[in-house]
């Protein structure tokens, strides 16, 4: 199902993520979010990365794993009324290409975030400059120690937690599972 074509799909929610241009739009959207966050002067680079992760994962959780049903009326008399969007994708077939893409993309995002949250210099150029400075002070041990500031574990924990919150509902073992009856009806 692509935008602007006549289709006879019973539940368009199942095919929307396969539509032409959807993945690119999603990637560009995430990129835009990150650039906006980077542009805010108060946030340092690691904070911007962690915020991107958290906002992206929160949005993904709400839209794919919290909201149930369809925004339109389907001719199958409401078969998907109690299913989240993730459960509706591709009519419940696991490990399709869309599902793989949307599982891998938060991983890559978080991996980049974790790599950048260590308060290391964000560009190789800065790294080179700092190296030169350090070499001039002849204190390489201090240089290495300065890589890992006390904010590192916090960022790491935040990123990992939000990544888990978005990866675990995607597992096929959790298809249709509602823990403690939350979000069941």
């Amino acid at each position, binding site marked *: 199902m692509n935008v602007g074509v006549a289709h006879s799909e019973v539940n368009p929610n199942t095919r929307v993520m396969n539509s032409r241009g959807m993945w690119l739009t999603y990637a560009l959207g995430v990129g835009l979010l990150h650039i906006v966050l980077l542009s805010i002067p108060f946030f340092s680079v690691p904070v911007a990365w962690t915020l991107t992760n958290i906002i992206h994962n929160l949005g993904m959780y709400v839209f794919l794993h919290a909201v149930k049903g369809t925004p339109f009326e389907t001719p199958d008399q409401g078969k998907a009324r109690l299913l989240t969007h993730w459960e509706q994708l591709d009519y419940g077939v696991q490990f399709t290409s869309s599902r793989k893409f949307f599982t891998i993309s938060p991983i890559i995002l978080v991996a980049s975030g*974790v790599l950048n949250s260590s308060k290391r210099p964000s560009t190789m150029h800065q790294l080179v400059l700092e190296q030169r400075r350090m070499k001039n002070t002849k204190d390489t041990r201090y240089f290495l120690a300065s890589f890992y500031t006390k904010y590192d574990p916090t960022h790491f924990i935040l990123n990992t937690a939000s990544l888990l919150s978005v990866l675990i509902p995607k597992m096929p073992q959790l298809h249709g599972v509602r823990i403690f009856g939350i979000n069941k009806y």
Partner: protein
Amino acid sequence: MATATEQWVLVEMVQALYEAPAYHLILEGILILWIIRLLFSKTYKLQERSDLTVKEREELIEEWQPEPLVPPISKDHPALNYNIVSGPPSHNIVVNGKECINFASFNFLGLLDNPRIKAAALASLKKYGVGACGPRGFYGTFDVHLDLEDRLAKFMKTEEAILYSYGFATIASAIPAYSKRGDIVFVDKAACFAIQKGLQASRSDIKLFKHNDMADLERLLKEQEIEDQKNPRKARVTRRFIVVEGLYMNTGAICPLPELVKLKYKYKARIFLEESLSFGVLGEHGRGVTEHYGINIDDIDLISANMENSLASVGGFCCGRSFVIDHQRLSGQGYCFSASLPPLLAAAAIEALNIMEENPGIFALLKEKCEQIHKALQGISGLKVVGESFSPAFHLQLENSTGSREDDVKLLQEIVNQCMNRSVALTQARYLEREEKWLPPPSIRVVVTVEQTEEELEEAAATIKEVAQAILL
């Protein structure tokens, strides 16, 4: 110079990797492994059918015997021996060449042969042609359709009405438009076939209550209330409906609407009222069962009726509040995906409404005639009258059944044939016996119209009495 810088940067990166804390590396390692596993997983469906071995499949194919496409039926099946009507099925009907008085067609107000209606239909035919050639969404909406919807809404004193082009499809489309999977519908056991098909299409939970038994309905509603209290979150998303008919086609009884409205407000369910037989029959002005009982029409959420009985047209309509009826404009399958009513039939229906509004005395007249024949047919040996005294379509059932339905049907058919020989055209009530949820006993359905004179009614009653006496004793 550039190469040296790059090499040096690479060394620094590797150094940084060595110096990263352990949990970083472990996490990134796990993530990389997860990505690789994902990329190489095959797609599979969650519920797999049980796989049969090739041998089992061959066995199953060997032992399968195809059923005949057309099942064998006896030669005297009624569908194969039908009566042929020449001319209009009006008051005097010519069946198989013999002229009879029509006691079988649902022409309650005698509007089938009305010259005014014929003139209106002809004028419309000359203006619009014969068919509509399109559904309502694709150039199938004519001004006569909008006029008729407007007139029906005004006549029934509701906000809006919606037209369907086939009477059966009206209620069968209306129910699934509102009631979906997971919703609960409480319906009378004796509901007509169209309601049953609508319920089947809706995929909802159906709870049948005994015919016209409000105590049984209340019991079911109470049980549902207890279930709801156990699981209030589920109850909040479940819709509840009660589907009843005004005058039941299968039994001629009237639904106790005041009690139903009380139950509706007590247990928070919505009422869908099917008024095919009571529209244009009950009430001072023919507005149906709500007028008959004096109930405010806003208490009923949806009224559905077909125009094939009193209005002597084709098709059906639903009326109610705009908020309710508007939903069917996109969700009523029979509305969106069938061609619209031919304009000449819509014009005929408008004219029929005009006639109904001009002489409201015909409803009282019809009621008198019903009561007359009801009284006259009491006390026939072997047959009992089933239905309300003011119901123009009632049933004559055998008092003592022979034991098998086939024999009962044969017996009643004998009576019908004999009456036909004596110029009284009757019919048996026919059902799809295997499809009905609650198959009523075989019966002769007698229909009273305003066009039948009192003498004709007395004569018909006498004829039926004689024939029944001759055959059943």
